[in-house]
């Protein structure tokens, strides 16, 4: 089974689920051989209120209801919101969401994120966190609290059993810098998503941290996401692990109280 562990749904102009985009993703999956999309719905700018992330998670729930065999959900929260932990608990226990999605409101190793990470560690559910080491002034200014690989290293030292996924190696930013740091974090997983499809990138990731920690993902760059895995210098068994086996093993760890 091929699992895209980092994809998104989005809102239509009226705030409801954009069903056309939701269906187009499934169509793309059919064309390119992706069985399951693990999705969140992000608000990319401004502060993230409870109403906003609750609404975003509702849209994920609707997408799952629309294509129950093809979508799995991450619960997206702002960790500094007092209702964040309750939102996570409800989505994981009641709605069957598979994990937690964090964006760039706080560094992943910030104390304010710790209760979320503790719960994820206790329940053995994955935390997919936006990440990057941007080198351009525009991104640096827009995302002052984007976590880079060094933040991830510190987070898993504090929570050694945490299933933490560094998002989109190809999502922009200096991916070689990320790989240098992730060698120091033996429990961090790395997803391959993003619009950067640099030759040699996936092979270098495998060499740096091992094939068992590499997870296939697209983050909306679907042909590029599939293509970079097809071109990687992997055995059939290794490719199957990256394309879905590794993430399926993560989902099997779930131990929700």
């Amino acid at each position, binding site marked *: 089974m091929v699992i895209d562990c980092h994809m998104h749904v989005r809102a239509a102009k009226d705030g409801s689920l954009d069903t056309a985009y939701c269906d187009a993703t499934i169509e793309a999956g059919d*064309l390119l051989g992706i069985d399951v999309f693990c999705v969140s719905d992000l608000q990319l700018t401004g502060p993230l209120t409870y109403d906003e992330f609750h609404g975003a998670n509702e849209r994920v729930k609707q997408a799952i209801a629309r294509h129950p065999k093809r979508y799995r959900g991450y619960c997206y929260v702002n960790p500094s919101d007092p209702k964040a932990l309750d939102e996570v608990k409800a989505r994981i226990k009641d709605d069957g969401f598979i994990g937690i999605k964090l964006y760039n409101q706080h560094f992943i190793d910030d104390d304010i994120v710790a209760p979320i990470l503790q719960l994820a560690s206790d329940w053995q559910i994955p935390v997919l966190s936006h990440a*990057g080491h*941007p080198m351009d002034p525009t991104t640096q200014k827009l995302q002052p609290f984007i976590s880079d690989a060094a933040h991830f290293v510190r987070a898993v030292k504090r929570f050694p059993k945490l299933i933490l996924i560094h998002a989109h190696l190809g999502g922009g930013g200096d991916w070689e810098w990320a790989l240098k740091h992730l060698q120091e974090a033996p429990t961090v997983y790395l997803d391959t998503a993003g619009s950067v499809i640099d*030759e040699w990138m996936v092979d270098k990731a495998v060499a740096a941290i091992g094939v068992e920690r590499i997870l296939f993902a697209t983050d909306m760059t679907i042909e590029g996401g599939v293509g*970079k895995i097809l071109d990687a210098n992997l055995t059939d068994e290794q490719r199957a692990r990256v394309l879905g086996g590794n993430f399926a093993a993560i989902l099997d760890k779930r131990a929700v109280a």
Partner: protein
Amino acid sequence: MSKYDSIFGADVIDAHTFIGNWAFRRLRRNDAAGLIAMMDQFGISRSCVASADSILYRDAHEGNKKLYDETRAHPDRFLLYATLNPAYAGWQRDLKECVDLGFKALRLYPIYHGYTLESAECLSIIDAATEAGLPVSFQCRVEDLRQRHWMDVLDNLDPEQVLGIAEQRPEATFILLESILSWPRDSDHWKRMHALPFYVECSRMTSVLGKDIETMVGALGPERVLLGTGFPFKTPSPAFLKLQCLDVDELNKRSIAGGNAQKLFVR
């Protein structure tokens, strides 16, 4: 045997490849042998190849000479871009040498080479290339700006500016590489581009979700779209997957995969 050649025909031409080094990141398979190995793996009969060295050399023509030496043993596999800097000394002589050596198109990097599209030297080299029968290509970016080396440039080339220059030189043939053109189907940009001999390589665009390649094919016509991988900077399969997923008939897919480049570069 390639997994793609039976789909796209026997004469697949990759309109966007390089040989040479990039100062800010190590590349592999970045010589003629490496490129040919990739081409054989993907069923590409010929590659339009530029010098990666020329982007950052002070004297860009040194990269052209090196490219020629590297590829001269395989004239049946390579079609050469001449990368020149019209703000540098002696470009007229260098262009003539490239034409004499059989280079097929000109490549310009205004941002890397420190001149503007509207400058007199840029217009002069476009005119000279047109006079010599060479199409003029512009690459909108080399690497994603977000991963830029601290000594690399801070901007991408704006496709709208290239379109503006093309309108000033309607007799010239333009090729745009690594652009993201997400204009709506009825945008005036497409109409302006369609009125000119303007070609677009589609490696930065998509056939699914946003479907901007489909929009471009509808607006510009399939005869103006070129397959390109960006190898060895970029991994090749995405370019083929985009063409595979593109909702056009097989004849037009084959044109994009090679027929259009054949008309453009092999004259």
